[in-house]
């Protein structure tokens, strides 16, 4: 074989690895029943592919070939193990004809396997930090180093979480399956929570936002899209819409020096309009579902914001009504605070201040800097400088994010001038 042909096969295998390796892995985990063994077998299969395809040409169904090769590699390992350790089950894997695998791989099998992998990695018996690490590693194929960089921790911490997570999956028998229809809503919640956490990690860390973190939002959107394709539940669609609509404003949210730019001051021409259009379409689709979930409602709120030319022409009455719905679906003081801000936009600052005071009188969110910042802003609008200053100062004591601190300080300086 010519040297250039070998290069060609190598490039083709690399491409197949990029596109198919997570699918191959998901199926191998089902077939061999063990995460680490499946991963090892997948890498062996890709290595053999370079060699064999270089000699015999690329097979018609490369994915089925890889799954089949990986399965035989795993069988070899199990055979070797059982020779050394008689207490192991004789053969957990029965060799089957490659044709059968091909059928399995071409049918719905593979897509189901990817869904299984997502649900297993996000099983509520795992801690949420383990769910995140496992999902990004196993489902998205991110390296341990990339995950560590994104979450500002060390690769060894992430590696440990992944190892412990896999051990718990094996030893506590966390099943490799999509939950039953009865359990699905509750279990889907934890999957959606993981995706949203990954998104927010990449989105709200606005200062010194490295490329990896922006990538993380992109990864969350990709994961959301994959889930939406596999399981077109209204809540999944709602979450994807929500992420698209938030992410569409990314460029307009911060100035070049990293300072925050509030929604009302954002240059709307910097918004990603094709993404907003898609977000609107999906938000509408999610909102049309008979049972409204929290993500669908939040997406609808984001859609109202992104439909207006500016803050004054925003339909605040509609936003307040949507927050009322959200409060019913998921009561929380944070939702109440957001609703209070929307009411202030509709009925004037005084109405907003009164609602915020109700939250504070119940003894909630007193340590939440955004509550004080919101209150300060409303006093500022009323021209009550003394109260505004006092609230900004409370916010300043509690804020931990650098751009937000700079923003509050700027507002305090403006009060003096």
């Amino acid at each position, binding site marked *: 074989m010519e040297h250039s042909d070998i290069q060609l096969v190598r490039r083709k295998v690399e491409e197949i690895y990029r596109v198919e390796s997570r699918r191959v892995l998901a199926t191998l985990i089902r077939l061999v029943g063990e995460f680490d063994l499946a991963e090892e077998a997948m890498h062996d299969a890709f290595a053999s592919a370079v060699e064999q395809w270089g000699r015999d040409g690329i097979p018609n169904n490369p994915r089925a070939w890889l799954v089949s090769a990986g399965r035989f590699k795993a069988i070899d390992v199990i055979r070797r193990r059982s020779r050394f350790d008689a*207490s192991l*089950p004789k053969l957990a894997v029965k060799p089957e004809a490659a044709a059968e695998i091909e059928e399995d791989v071409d049918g719905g099998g593979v897509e189901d396997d990817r869904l299984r992998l997502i649900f297993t990695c996000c*099983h509520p*018996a795992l801690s949420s930090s383990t769910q995140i690490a496992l999902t990004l590693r196993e489902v998205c194929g991110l390296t341990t180093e990339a995950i560590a960089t994104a979450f500002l921790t060390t690769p060894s911490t992430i590696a440990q979480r992944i190892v412990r997570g896999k051990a718990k999956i094996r*030893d*506590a*028998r*966390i*099943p490799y399956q999509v*939950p039953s229809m009865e*359990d699905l809503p509750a279990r889907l919640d934890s999957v959606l929570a993981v995706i949203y956490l990954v998104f927010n990690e990449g989105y709200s860390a606005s200062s010194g936002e490295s490329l990896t973190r922006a990538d993380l939002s992109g990864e969350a959107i990709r994961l959301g899209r994959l889930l939406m394709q596999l399981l077109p539940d209204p809540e999944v669609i709602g979450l994807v819409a929500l992420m698209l609509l938030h992410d569409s404003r990314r460029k307009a949210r911060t100035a070049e020096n990293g300072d925050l730019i509030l929604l009302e001051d954002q240059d709307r021409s910097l918004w990603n309009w094709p993404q907003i259009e898609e977000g609107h379409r999906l938000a509408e689709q999610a909102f049309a579902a008979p049972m409204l979930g929290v993500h669908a409602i939040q997406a609808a709120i984001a859609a109202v914001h992104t439909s207006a030319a500016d803050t004054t022409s925003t339909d605040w009455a509609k936003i307040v009504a949507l927050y009322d719905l959200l409060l019913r679906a998921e009561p929380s003081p944070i939702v109440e605070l957001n609703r209070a801000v929307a009411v202030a936009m509709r009925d004037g600052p005084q109405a907003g201040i009164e609602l915020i005071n109700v939250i504070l009188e119940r003894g909630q969110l007193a340590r939440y800097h955004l509550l004080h910042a919101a209150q300060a802003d409303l006093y500022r609008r009323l021209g009550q400088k003394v109260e505004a200053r006092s609230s900004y100062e409370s916010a300043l004591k509690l804020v931990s994010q650098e751009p937000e601190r700079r923003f509050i300080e700027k507002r305090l300086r403006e009060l003096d001038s």
Partner: protein
Amino acid sequence: MRFMLLIYSEEGCWAEDEREKCFQESTQIANALHKEGKFLAASPLLPVSMATSVRVRDGKRSLTDGPFAETREQLGGFFMIEAKDIDEAVEIAARLPAARKGTVEVRPVHELEGLPGRQVGNSK
């Protein structure tokens, strides 16, 4: 595979009739599980005030009153079950009346070779 369901709750929080009801309901669940071949053992425990902790250090035995550590919720009983995976074990744990009042901890059992007793549903 075996799972131990450890039932923790605040001892003071059970009224006498509540406790009685809980025992009855738990017994029914145990019988139902037995029919499915999933029941291995279960028992409530007498209160922590009845407990004695034993430690042997350097060959010397010491006994102390009560449990090893003070916690808000105490171990008050257990179920040992046979389940195919953690989801099934959790489903059974959630049926226990004690789960509505306290906490049921689900722990996979490490199965040791060579222990006496019947081997129920050896699914290893």
